[in-house]
């Protein structure tokens, strides 16, 4: 997910009102729809028998350890904004021990005013929503399981129990658990059958509808992950994303016949139904989620790209007015596919779908799901503003960092968002130039690197990278640290280890951990393994710590050695005059880092010193027939974590051009504002 697209004219899509009470949604089933579906699909979806095409495809060697097999049939009612569905989930108990209690996510229940999600939004806001916004009923969402059966154990609907493992908020209904009458043995499978109804909110936090557009994400009851010898099934929080096991998805979507549908799966077949609906059948494997979208207004721009793992079909589902962004999306997507293929590893899926949300629906934009990503643009998007590009690059990157290397987004968000942001900087620079990868106008530029670096500067020392996502001090710190600081930490490491070595690191990390759930330590150990260096000193401060890094040239000057003698005039100045030059470097922050210091003299010579950076300060003294011109810490600009790059250097002569430029703008703005106000007199 991308939370910090600069200058994107995002519309606030969500409001909160305190006095709204929780209303349990009605228990409607899709009984009427099922016969039609069964007829259309040629099978009984509720029985979960796979179609022939799917059965053939599953014969391929699985890429992942498939823990779950979801079989879902869902019918969309575009007028009521509801989805009636049935789900069959077969869970393989690979936990190595008997399992009797199973937790499930019901993410859509977060969009209720008393939920933990909304309580946290009210506290510190979240993406696109400030804390002081009011509740609006149109953002109400719910996910109600109306029937819960376990094969061989009967109807256990009464056994469903909401739990709140993170904050004990009894008004939060985003997780429920069921204790089975008897445990599931290690290695055995259990099949859950559920019927559920979704009430979709108007787009909020990645999902929902806007007019006739639907982005349906996190929409079905999803089982938790057995991880670190316990169930990992967190409530849905304002700053958290998702975590799930790999498996297969067979999904039948029943929608009105005028809908254009896109989904995170291969389209196996379509069939028109007699009631004016159409059934789309999708299959997906070695993924851990399934999302889909529908709108009658989409234009499907198709393309393809071929990489080391074969051909990838590209679908860009464009909303009205955004056709001009199609080539921008496609160009960036192909460029990113190529760079990932070259640098990191093969993209093993045969498809990628880009969903372009319509105007007013941007809250659904900038999100990743397996083989389906949501982008973001506007009809007036200038070419120099690379929002469509950076969103597509970022969200596609998540196919690797979240999609395949499936880290826990609740607990270690830096591993997907941060690593992805680091590679986003590298790839955007490779495609659009390092200085202009975010903004490229004759009068203003910005590189993605600077954008990421500055994003964490406002709250740099509240939270370490490793904090659980919902335990950050606020949304700003979460975004700045998880995305910006992680990217900067890795970019600094990139400079220290070398670009090639860091590329090897990322390649190795991907190969080692694709289709698994690695931890932060797994990533850090991979860096040490590949680089052959012990980097604990760096990780302890940059990853696990909140230390601020700030080195400065504190004082620098040249003085005549024979200072007590009268100074000669310029005309008679002595070439052999000896000067004593002092350069003092100060470590302002608590972050200790070895640094280089370059001192340049007016005879063209220079000296480069290496300081271990441990003490609070160091002074270098030179006696030369030359005076100081400049002194600079980290002249190669490797240490991007340095909070203040301006104090890294000191020049004896003033250069006022920068300040003149700023003053021009400021003066003009002040005069213009004055005249606007004086217009009223």
């Amino acid at each position: 997910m991308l939370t910090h697209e600069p200058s994107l004219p995002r519309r606030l899509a969500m409001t909160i009102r305190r006095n709204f009470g929780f209303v349990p949604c009605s228990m409607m089933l899709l009984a009427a729809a099922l016969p039609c579906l069964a007829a259309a699909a040629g099978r009984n979806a509720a029985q979960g028998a796979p179609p022939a095409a799917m059965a053939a495809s599953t014969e391929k060697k699985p890429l992942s350890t498939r823990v779950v097999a979801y079989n879902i049939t869902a019918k969309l009612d575009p007028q009521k904004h509801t989805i009636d569905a049935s789900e069959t989930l077969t869970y393989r108990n690979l936990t190595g021990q008997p399992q009797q209690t199973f937790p499930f996510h019901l993410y859509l229940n977060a969009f209720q005013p008393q939920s933990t999600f909304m309580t946290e939004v009210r506290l510190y806001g979240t993406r696109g929503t400030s804390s002081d916004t009011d509740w609006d009923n149109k953002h109400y969402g719910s996910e109600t399981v109306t029937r819960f059966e376990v094969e061989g154990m009967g109807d256990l609907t009464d056994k469903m129990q909401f739990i709140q493992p993170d904050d004990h908020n009894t008004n939060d209904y985003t997780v429920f658990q069921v204790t089975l009458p008897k445990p599931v043995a290690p290695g055995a499978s259990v099949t859950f059958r559920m019927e559920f109804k979704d009430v979709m909110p108007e787009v909020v936090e990645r999902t929902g509808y806007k007019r006739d557009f639907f982005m349906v994400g996190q929409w079905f009851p999803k089982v938790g992950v057995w991880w670190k010898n316990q169930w990992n099934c967190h409530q849905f929080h304002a700053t958290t994303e998702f975590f799930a096991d790999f498996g297969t998805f067979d999904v039948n979507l029943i929608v009105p016949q005028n809908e254009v549908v896109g989904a995170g799966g291969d389209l196996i077949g379509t069939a028109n139904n007699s009631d004016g609906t159409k059934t789309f059948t999708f299959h997906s494997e070695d993924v851990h989620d399934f999302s889909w979208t529908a709108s009658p207004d989409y234009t499907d721009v198709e393309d393809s790209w071929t990489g080391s793992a074969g051909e990838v079909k590209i679908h860009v589902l464009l909303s009205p007015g955004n056709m001009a962004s199609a080539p921008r999306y496609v160009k960036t997507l192909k460029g990113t596919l190529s760079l990932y293929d070259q640098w990191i590893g093969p993209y093993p899926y045969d498809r990628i779908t880009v969903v372009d949300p319509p105007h007013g629906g941007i809250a659904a934009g900038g999100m990743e799901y397996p083989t389906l990503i949501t982008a973001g643009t506007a009809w007036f998007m200038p070419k120099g503003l690379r929002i469509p590009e950076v969103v597509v690059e970022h969200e596609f990157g998540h196919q690797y960092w979240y999609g395949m290397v499936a880290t826990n987004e609740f607990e270690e968000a830096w591993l997907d968002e941060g690593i992805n942001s680091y590679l986003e900087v590298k790839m955007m620079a490779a495609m659009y130039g390092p200085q202009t990868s975010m903004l490229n106008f004759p009068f203003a530029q910005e590189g993605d690197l600077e954008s990421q670096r500055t994003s964490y500067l406002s709250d740099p020392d509240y939270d370490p990278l490793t904090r659980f996502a919902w335990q950050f001090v606020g949304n700003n710190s979460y975004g700045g640290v998880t995305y910006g600081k992680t990217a900067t930490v890795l970019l600094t490491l990139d400079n220290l280890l070398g670009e090639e070595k860091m590329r090897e690191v990322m390649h190795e990390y991907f190969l080692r951990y694709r289709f698994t759930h690695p931890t932060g330590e797994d990533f850090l150990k991979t860096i040490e393994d590949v680089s052959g260096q012990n980097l604990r000193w760096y990780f302890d401060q940059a990853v696990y710590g909140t230390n601020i890094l700030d080195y400065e040239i504190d004082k620098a000057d040249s003085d005549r050695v024979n200072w007590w003698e009268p100074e000669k005039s310029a005309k008679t100045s002595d070439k052999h005059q000896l000067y004593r030059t002092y350069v003092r470097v100060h470590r302002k922050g608590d972050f200790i880092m070895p640094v280089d210091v370059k001192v340049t003299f007016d005879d063209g010579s220079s000296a480069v010193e290496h300081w271990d950076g441990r003490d609070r300060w160091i002074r270098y003294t030179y006696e030369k027939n030359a005076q100081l011109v400049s002194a600079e810490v980290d002249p190669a600009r490797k240490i991007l974590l340095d909070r203040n790059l301006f104090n890294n250097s000191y020049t004896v002569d003033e250069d006022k051009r920068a300040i003149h430029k700023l003053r021009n703008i400021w003066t003009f703005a002040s005069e213009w504002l004055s005249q606007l106000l004086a217009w009223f007199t």
Partner: protein
Amino acid sequence: MDSRSKPFGSGARLVWRRQRALWWVFLFNLALALIGTRTLVQDASGVLNHSLESSRRLVHGFDVSVFTELGALPEDPFRATNAPFFWTPILFTIFMLFMTGGILTTYYDDLKLDTASFFESCGRHFWRFLRLLIYFGIAMIPIGILASICGKVYNHIDDLSVSPYTAPASGVAAILVLLLLLLSVRFWFDIAQVIAIADYEKRMHKALRLSAKLVWRDFGSLFWLYLRISVVAWLVFAFGLYVWMMWLKPESTRLAFVVSQLLILWWLGTRLWQRASGIEWYKDHQELQAVAEARAPIPPPAPVEEEEEVVVGA
């Protein structure tokens, strides 16, 4: 019709002839802006002037992240500049309220007033124009309400329309209507100020009433006059901004300063051009009225008794 089209050109010539007023106002505006940004310049100078980083990122281009970075520094140079940056425009507004009487008198008389007469006129009209400003605020209320309604309608259209163009198109139309309304209110009050100067009218509500009558009677010509100047002002301003942003080299800070100040001077000049044209328009109106009065049928003289004829030398 000749007399009606004249104010556009004669107004511009009047501003040119009496350009001293323009320069003084411009210089005052510049001086206030320099004062308002002084703290920023001082504080930012401390960060930028001796740093190699600033020339890397600001001189040979303009890296906008520098703003974020400077703002995130503990010594945040932008924080200190906030207050003066916002009160100097208020000071300038008060200054303009004071100066308007003198400037309009200069324009109306088309004479170089001595300093004493100029400021005497400024002082004489200050409180009157302040009252007019209050009335102007009241006149803004319905426009503000209309703007608020337009905003809600815009949101509603944006919410319902599948096409992303419908709402912006209606928004642009609404903005144009609002701007034209604002323009109309502005020249109504401008003419009221002229009446206060020309007719020594002390009662501003009466000046407003008279102005409203005049404007209502000849709305088209005055509207067209103001609209033309506004359009010319915006076109040249936009072109100047384009030159500044797109043509000038990033390193040309001096030239950029000149261009930016020319833009400000132009903007100020066009506002005075509107005021001068309003005066010319009003003078035309006075002339027309005088001619009309001169042409009015003379009532027949009252019958007088015949005087006794004196015959000389009979």
